[in-house]
């Protein structure tokens, strides 16, 4: 068992080590301060923050409804809510384009209202939210369902109204799961490539997020691509650390 396990660990570590070996650490500040790089970093930060907020605002109520539901419709809802997780991102982007593109079915109605989504920064946010929301919904729903019966019934017998139960019992108990769901959703949004490219395109400063910029720069300026990649790896590692801390908190408190 030790040999294949060691091989697996090596397999996961070698590409990252190789990349860190190629980084020109001395030039890192210059590489990261090129206009294209700064634009991409700043755009990614803004869009990912926006899409994470959207995931939370829309995904948390969805997770709460799903956690309370039983039966065939609930199962269908659960499948729908986790589908974007396994869908190829290009397909997700195409689906968004077909629904919300300028000449598309829903997009046309939005155009009339003066809202043009496709190939705008808003489209980046929509694409990221679409692919990232399942991570939040799935992780929160599981936690809510396990907390539900026992503690919510006890709270009700202690005189807590449904809103008090939600505020003082359900949400606090789910807080670690919500935090790790948020971190996962943010990480997924940050790495979003296929859906963004398909639905939002790649315009510097408008729709060209970090992964798109890295993909474009890998031919023209590999040093910039690697420098930006390192930034992504560090952020991703930080987010994983956050989720593992929260899952440990959950482990000791229940």
């Amino acid at each position, binding site marked *: 068992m030790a040999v294949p396990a060691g091989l697996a660990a090596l397999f996961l570590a070698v590409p990252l080590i190789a990349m860190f070996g190629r980084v020109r650490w001395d030039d890192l500040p210059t590489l990261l301060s090129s206009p294209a790089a700064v634009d991409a970093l700043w755009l990614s930060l803004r869009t990912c923050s926006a899409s994470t907020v959207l995931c939370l605002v829309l995904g948390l109520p969805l997770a709460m409804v799903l956690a309370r539901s039983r039966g065939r419709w609930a199962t269908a809802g659960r499948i729908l809510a986790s589908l974007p997780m396994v869908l190829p991102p290009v397909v997700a982007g195409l689906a968004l384009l077909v629904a919300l593109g300028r000449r598309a079915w829903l997009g046309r109605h939005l155009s009339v209202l003066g809202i043009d989504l496709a190939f705008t920064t808003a489209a980046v946010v929509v694409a990221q939210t679409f692919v990232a929301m399942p991570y939040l919904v799935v992780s929160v729903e599981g936690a809510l369902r396990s907390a539900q019966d026992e503690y919510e019934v006890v709270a009700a017998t*202690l*005189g807590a109204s449904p809103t008090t139960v939600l505020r*003082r*019992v359900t949400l*606090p108990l789910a*807080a670690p799961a919500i935090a790790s769901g948020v971190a996962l959703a943010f990480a997924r949004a940050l790495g979003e490539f296929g859906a963004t490219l398909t639905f939002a395109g790649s315009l510097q400063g408008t729709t060209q997020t970090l992964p798109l910029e890295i993909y474009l720069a890998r031919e023209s300026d590999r040093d910039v691509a690697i420098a930006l990649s390192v930034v992504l790896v560090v952020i991703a590692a930080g987010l994983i650390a956050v989720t593992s801390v929260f899952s440990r908190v959950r482990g000791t408190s229940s």
Partner: protein
Amino acid sequence: MTQVIVDAALVDRGVSLDISVPAGSVTAIVGPNGSGKTTLLHLVAGLLRPTSGSVRVGDRTLSDTGRVVPTHRRRVALLTQRSSLFPHLTVLENVAFAPTASGASRAAARVRALQELAGVGCADLASRRAHELSGGQAQRIAIARALAGDPLVVLLDEPMAGLDVAVATEIRHVLAERLRGRTALFVTHEVLDLWTIADRVAVVDAGKVVESGAVEDLLIRPTSTFLAQLSGLTLLSGVECDGDLEIAPGVLVQGLSDPGQPLTHGGRGLAGIPPEAVALHLQQPGGSPRNVLSAVITSLEPRGAVVRVRLDVASQQLAADITTQSVGGLGLHPGQAVWAVVKAVQVRLYGR
């Protein structure tokens, strides 16, 4: 003061429960597993709604077929085998939960919570969290938390079931003290709980309340097999005949008449016989004042140091607890004919 009156049916659970718990009384609910005891508690707590009938607490109707007051507006506390302390709150915050939920200020809720914690002997645990408590401590705190909300009715669903004997004894003591004067329904399997905590008892069997009354009356003079078992007696039934009980034509049982509920002349009555008072003989012994009954062994059940020998006496059931050595010495086996001998002073006769 608040009495609880339940007269409600739940068709899909096969229960039709009719019970009234006087204000300030702790009524023990006993009965076989699956008979509807927990369902009764859930009807009062509003976790189940009756398909017909009603649940009333004091002068409020909490459930009837038209409307159901939600659980959080009933002021009904529920304690179960699991203490279910909120893991994200400290012990003090757990106990202060009910006062805060009903609108008390933080300071007032805290004072109340500390009072209740002191009442169960856990004031020193106020800043702990659930995972830092033993099972007994957690259950004491759950009791404090339930009482801090000034419930009109306390429902207890075998709160000692998960605890070892020594801890259960402590919790029993705490409950006896803290439930005094409150209206409570207490589901239990332990006869000790009936004597120490309850003042009334109701027997639920197959979805119905089959018997209820004061603990003393029902346990000293049980009329159902279930209560007789619970109080460690076996019952023979018959008709009064010259101060004795005739359990079959010509078969008389002598005993002491219970002054609380004496046999009536020619009326139906019961003989309560503790199994440990019954001796078995292979030959018919002489002498009196003793009851000597012809019996056939139906089964032998080892119970620690003794063997419970089940007997058929005039087509009724009697039990005898015999030491393992005697069972071996006498060579007892099912189907064997023996003589069951009981001193008259150990038999209590009462009317039904």
